[in-house]
């Protein structure tokens, strides 16, 4: 691996771990896990989790196969790619590992 690529890889890992580089001002409330409710981002898996507020977070979620977005929009970073979602949408997705979430 070239030095340039190493630097880029480390920078990307830091970005994901510390909050993805999104072009928005820091929100008053950062993204966090919440009790599941219809207005939150619901990531359905054998161990369903739900999220709200703007920001980015690294996660370790296995076998996520369905989402409902509530009043949230953003990106689900999974093993099969970056899944963009809009508000008030719900859909099945190929079961996959999710490693980060961004809510705008």
């Amino acid at each position, binding site marked *: *691996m070239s030095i*340039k*690529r190493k630097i*880029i*890889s480390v*920078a*990307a890992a830091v970005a994901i771990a510390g909050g993805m*580089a999104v*072009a*928005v*001002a820091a*929100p*008053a*409330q950062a993204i966090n896990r919440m009790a599941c*409710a*219809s*207005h939150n981002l619901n990531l359905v898996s054998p161990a369903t989790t739900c999220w709200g507020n*703007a920001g980015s977070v690294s996660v370790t979620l296995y076998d996520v196969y369905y*989402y*409902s*977005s*509530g*009043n949230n*929009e953003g990106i*689900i970073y*999974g*093993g*099969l*790619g*970056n*899944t*963009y*979602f*809009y*508000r*008030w*949408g*719900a*859909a*099945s*997705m190929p079961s996959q590992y999710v490693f980060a979430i961004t809510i*705008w």
Partner: protein
Amino acid sequence: MRLSTRLGLPSALLVVAVLCGCTDGAEVSPNNDEQSIPEPPIGEIRVVTEPAAATRPIDEYLLDTQGVLELVQSHTLQVARCLKDGGYSETFEYPSQDEVVGFVATVVDDRRLRSLLWGFFDVENARTLGYQRETASGALTVPALGKEASAECMNLEGFDPIKFAFDKSLPDAGPPVPVEDSRVRAAITAWAQCMSDHGFNYTDPLEPLNEFQSESPASSRQIATATADVDCKIDTNLVGIAVTVEDAYDQVYIEQHSAELEEYRTRIDDFLRAGAALE
């Protein structure tokens, strides 16, 4: 029936009350942060009975579907060149054009059909689809590259073409959503009363959208709720009042972010120019 004749007395009184300036001294915290700002003065209340009329000053700065597609095409070219120059054997493609167009068009259309402030206003489809979309593409999954290639070539200078379909791509995530504005709150109260009169109990126009988002196809109850929802929005002019208030917040935002908005446009132009140079 004309709106003026459809407005019931309570609704009409509400509009008069709003017009009379119940905003003196009121403060609002539109982004739920701790800093409160005075409610900006508003112009003449607009009457909005169809989504196409729910225009806003900030629209001028947002890309339409074609504009976002041009960014996607430019991004595709630039990623391909980056991969080639970096010696990667991987290739990158967005999903099919139909999928991308379907997703982006939904986001763009939602600017006038679904709002964080006034909720649902798809007048044309409420009676048949309820809260569902006519062409729901759900989500858009952009395939991943390998870790190194992705880090080097996918996020070119932080530029994400799909995000430009969303108003959150704007500087500081766009104008605030004045959910606590007293004029909007009064209009929502009138809408909630209208919904109650129709047998549906909601205090917030986002509630039915949240409740029914996963119920597709729509049940008869969902359709009845959505129908009453848009009828009540027209009867109380909730959307008209809300966009009138948003006009004022948009203008303040635009004035306060003129330099950043210029940079936003320049960034888009520069990105398109970089892609065009590769064609």
